[in-house]
């Protein structure tokens, strides 16, 4: 497994076996392939690059070339159990609308993103006075795809605004296993390099979207 994507393991824990999954920004389909193998999901992908789609096709995955900002509107309501947006939210033009779309087309949204409130980011800005470049955010400001960076607290504010519910949240620190956390705590905002959330619409749902503890691997 690609050691740069520890969040994959966490996503694997969150997804119920046999679920219908849409992976947005699926790249070459590594996560979808993992989910199909380990959780027998019925997986679909959305990927912006031609090269990514071609590679996913050769893996036998059903992947549509398209842009998360535009093409999510093409999916019907409740088409999926989970919509996954892994390390992509900060790259879209309209993150708020994308979050709304995720929970329109799926019962649960699994979202991971780099935390701009992490102490290294803060320290970098404080000491150097320039846009932070860290291991989690390596590209300079003028060529970064990350146009909508946020902190853990910013994200939880938005989730609350939208009336969504946080079913699970974990902190990700490079090279370490994910650690469950309470995302509203200011200390977590310092400590988490990246975060991963399972969100639901916050309404009573007949199907439990949160996996039972014994389903965790």
């Amino acid at each position, binding site marked *: 497994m690609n050691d740069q994507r520890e969040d994959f393991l966490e996503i694997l824990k969150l997804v119920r076996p046999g679920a219908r999954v849409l992976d947005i920004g699926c790249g070459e389909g590594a996560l979808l392939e993992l989910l199909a193998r380990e959780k027998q999901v019925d997986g679909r992908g959305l990927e912006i690059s031609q090269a990514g*789609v*071609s*590679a996913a096709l*050769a*893996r*036998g995955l059903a992947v*549509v070339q398209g842009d998360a900002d535009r*093409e999510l509107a*093409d999916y*019907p309501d409740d088409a999926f159990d989970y919509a996954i947006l892994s390390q992509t939210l900060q790259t879209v033009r309209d993150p708020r609308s994308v979050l709304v779309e995720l929970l329109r087309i799926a019962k649960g949204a699994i979202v991971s993103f780099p935390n701009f409130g992490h102490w290294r980011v803060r320290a970098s800005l404080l000491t150097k006075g320039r846009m932070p470049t860290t291991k989690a955010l390596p590209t300079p400001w003028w060529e970064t795809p990350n146009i909508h960076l946020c902190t853990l607290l910013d994200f939880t504010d938005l989730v609350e605004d939208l009336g969504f519910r946080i079913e699970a949240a974990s902190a990700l620190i490079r090279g370490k296993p994910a650690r469950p956390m309470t995302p509203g705590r200011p200390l977590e905002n310092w400590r988490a390099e990246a975060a991963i959330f399972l969100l639901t619409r916050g309404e009573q749902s007949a199907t439990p979207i949160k996996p039972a503890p014994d389903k965790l691997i």
Partner: protein
Amino acid sequence: MRFPDGKPLRLDSGARLENFQIAYKTWGELNADKTNAVLICHALTLDQYVTGKHPISGKPGWWSRVVGPGMPVDPARHFIICANVVGGCMGSTGPASLNPATGAPYGLSFPVLTIGDMVRAQAMLVEALGIETLFSVIGGSMGGMQVLQWATDYPERLFSAICVAATARHSAQNIALHEVGRQAIMADPDWRAGEYALAGVRPEKGLAVARMGAHITYVSEDALQRKFGRGLQRDGLSWGFDADFQVESYLRHQGVSFVDRFDANAYLYITRAMDYFDLSAAHGGQLSKAFLPARDVRFCVVSFTSDWLYPTRESREIVRALNAAGARVSFLEVVSDKGHDAFLLDEPEMHAALAGFLGATGQERGLT
């Protein structure tokens, strides 16, 4: 293959085509389980000679880059079938064929056809060949329309489907462009209300103009500009109406060479069938309903960025409807400046995608 009396082709118009014939070619061998059959559907003016040397032109088949040894569709793995469409002029029954009832060419007494009729005839052929389920049905342009029609009419007979540079319904612009071509044919005095065969003439001028107009729609503005620009045929202008510009000469050549290989009435009938094509029409305009029975078919849809005849947004509409129906669909938009004809040309990204898709679905199907 000729279908005898008593096995007519029942047409969407309500008419029947009795004692009709389908000309087809095959490559490779059908495996013992009969799971490796691939049907290729051809575009408007093409034919069953997908690969290998064309018997008339002597040129390589129209999809030699997709079908052939070592290609995505490979006679070593697949049993490949391609049939001339009903209404065509390369051996299948069409308006130039003799009407068994009169002994004279059908001409305009030939019934108007639909894409659905063409596909129904193909289904009869596939059944007659003893094949219950096709591993894949593949086509570009009008061939892609047939692929979509197969998916709605015979989903249980399909394992996978590949639709390239096509649309689920002809737009007003598509119909308008076809109408110009048809009017050019019918304005030729040699057309003789479709009875030109009896008079021993052919509406060559009209058909050539139809082809010239259509050819412009197959290429992109950029490709045309790059190939010809304002380049002249000779030094200086003629101050007349000779083909001064290279692009004029090129188009005239396209027109003149086309009339040698195509029948004018067949052009009328096939363009009409394309204009009548609207898969959603029978489902209250909801394309996704047309695809509901095809939920188990694995789809691959491909479009090209510079195709303005069947632009990417029309392929996206197909993808959206397939998604809404819950089908397994993949979609690729290939960056190309070659226009609609890109699907016939050297487009490595398309070829790689087809190879990847067919390889992976082939594994699911148990093909080696």
